[in-house]
């Protein structure tokens, strides 16, 4: 009996002793947060690489981060404001479009760049291991930095207009961190899901590219919800991005239709989508090298 007991003890020791165990299947929901933490330096360097490589060999350098939204805003003001004569809820058009564009480009960049994670990094993933989720995470974080720069630009514009008394901010502006978090989660989850699925079906990449373009028109980026006929409002309310845009505008610019239930819906949508995305991503991550 004692011998047997000792043997079991010994085997217990050897079983728990391994630093690393490689099995055919991993837990589908694991985020490997411990590993991500251990690779935090790599995460930092990926973010740095994304940001630095963006303006290498340019004259204006990081200025491009603000030139882009300003130019887009001016174009939108001309096309949607002057030509199409879309209303902006009484908000000065420049502030209205800049706010929408900063938020939208944050979401679409997160989504588009993470959606090609596996395809763009096939060579790297085929040669070295690190938690694959670092790549989409770094994309989201580097875009967050870009967003903060762009939103700071919006902040300057905002100060100008509020000093002028043209806009009246609300306390809902304090919800901005939540809005950004939900939006980042949506972009990350959508991108991860697509990157996982597009390892098998490349068609999805093309579908996605114009899908995101179309999605912008189904989101109150260039128009306020108040301008939408009631009939279409129900459709718009299915879009989890709508409440996020409206609540931000309400907070900073003083006009926007939002509801707590709408925000709750966006959050729930983001969480569910993120869980599905993690499962799909983990599933693909293990053997994707064999299929690409």
């Amino acid at each position: 009996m004692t011998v047997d007991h000792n043997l079991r003890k010994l085997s217990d020791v050897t079983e728990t002793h391994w630093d690393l165990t490689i099995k055919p299947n991993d837990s589908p929901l694991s985020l490997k947060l411990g590993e991500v933490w251990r690779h935090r330096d790599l995460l930092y360097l990926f973010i740095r690489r994304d940001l630095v490589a963006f303006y290498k060999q340019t004259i204006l350098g990081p200025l491009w981060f603000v030139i882009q939204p300003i130019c887009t805003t001016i174009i939108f003001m001309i096309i949607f404001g002057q030509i199409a004569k879309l209303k902006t809820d009484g908000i000065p058009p420049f502030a209205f479009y800049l706010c929408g564009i900063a938020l939208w480009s944050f979401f679409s960049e997160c989504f588009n760049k993470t959606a090609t994670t596996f395809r763009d990094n096939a060579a790297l993933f085929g040669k070295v291991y690190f938690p694959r989720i670092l790549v989409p995470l770094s994309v989201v974080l580097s875009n967050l930095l870009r967003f903060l720069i762009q939103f700071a630009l919006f902040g300057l514009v905002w100060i100008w207009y509020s000093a002028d008394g043209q806009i009246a901010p609300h306390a809902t502006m304090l919800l901005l961190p939540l809005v950004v978090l939900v939006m980042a989660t949506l972009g990350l989850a959508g991108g991860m899901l697509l990157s996982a699925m597009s390892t098998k079906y490349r068609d999805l990449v093309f579908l996605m590219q114009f899908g995101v373009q179309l999605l912008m028109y189904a989101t109150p980026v260039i128009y306020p919800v108040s301008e939408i006929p009631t009939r279409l409002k129900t459709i718009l309310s299915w879009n989890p991005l709508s409440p996020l845009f409206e609540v931000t505008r309400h907070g900073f610019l003083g006009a926007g239709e939002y509801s707590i239930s709408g925000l709750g819906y966006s959050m729930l949508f983001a969480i569910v989508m993120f869980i599905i995305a993690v499962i799909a991503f983990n599933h693909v991550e293990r053997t994707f090298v064999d299929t690409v």
Partner: protein
Amino acid sequence: MRAIAIQFDDVSKQYRLGEIGTGSLSRDLGRAWARWLGRPDPYTIVGDENNLDYAKDHVWAIRNLSFEVRQGEVFGVIGRNGAGKSTLLKLLSRITAPTSGVIHANGKIASLLEVGTGFHPELTGRENVFLNGAILGMQRSEVRQRFDEIVEFSGCANYIDTPVKRYSSGMIVRLGFSVAAHLDCETLIVDEVLAVGDIDFQQRCIAKMQNVASSGRTILLVSHNMTTMSRLCDRCAILEKGELVYIGDTDAAVERYLKQNAKLRADADLSQHQPRSGTGHARFERFWIENESGDSIEMFGSGDTVTFCFDVRCRHQPIENLDVQFSIHELNGDILTRLTSVAVGAEFTAASEFQTVRCRLERVPLPAGTYTIEVRLVAKAEELDWPRGAVASFEVGEGDFYRSGRSIPHENSKFLIAGTWSDGGRE
């Protein structure tokens, strides 16, 4: 008994062949639909590999592999192309997951399947050293500590603040290896990356590896180069078609590997070869390769002198104007060259039933690699015997083709020319 660093426990890896993914959307939808209705998967393959289609589409890259590597050991894995060496490394490096079985490991593992992985062309050498180090699992502080050492070893100190896209390929490789060589880990996994850069750098790499090995770290090494293996490894395993056929002492493993190749390859019995065409008045019986002392060999070095020998059996004699032809092919079947005895004015007359025709090849200009042989027998424009396809294959190792004592890697060369060099300056 030293502790175990790596343990493979009945590990298998299966790959699906052919186009993966295309046309499978409808199947996947059908499968999902069936699952939704609670029916069995309509595309399940019954009987697994007994099913011919399944066996055709799926291949076991590694099958039921079990072995252990002890701490501080330099362990080599030998095997021909397609034996499963790379798959083994990929599994261990967690690049892809096994189909079944478990791999255990202790200590921090750094795997080096390629040098300069993840180098970004727009970033400077300095930035890439940090990025590459982090990709390989180093902390920034570690890289910072060893930065000078890394740059010194690579010999790229003058260009360290230049974007990597302006580097020569050699410089990128040197910088990449330097980062990898300074990895702080307990176990290092290396895949034939030793054969990079110029000779001087190669020597330094091997010295560095020996250094790492003698510092008590575990190394798992995969290489085609038997010389490197003998020099570095304590123990070796031989893989063949995904299965472990030998594990043990390095010298024994290398000898066994080379012998095995001999049996399988260079010395070929052609009497039963099928399919073949020709009148059959004379037929090839055997092909083999001899070295200068007349021993049958399976492998020789670039620049060695060897003799290709053909045993021919003639049903009617004499046969006049006998023309022996053979061609040397790359493994993928591409022809490199064709030799015919007629071309050099040698036409034989077969007077007896058994005839041995020899063709001496001086200073063979083939780079290291595996080659196959096809043969054909013709007399007076009439085909006597043509065993179809490759009849034998042989291996060329690194050799002293240039008569300079230097072995130069030739990944992209098909043949070698030494050239006669001079630098008579202008007067």
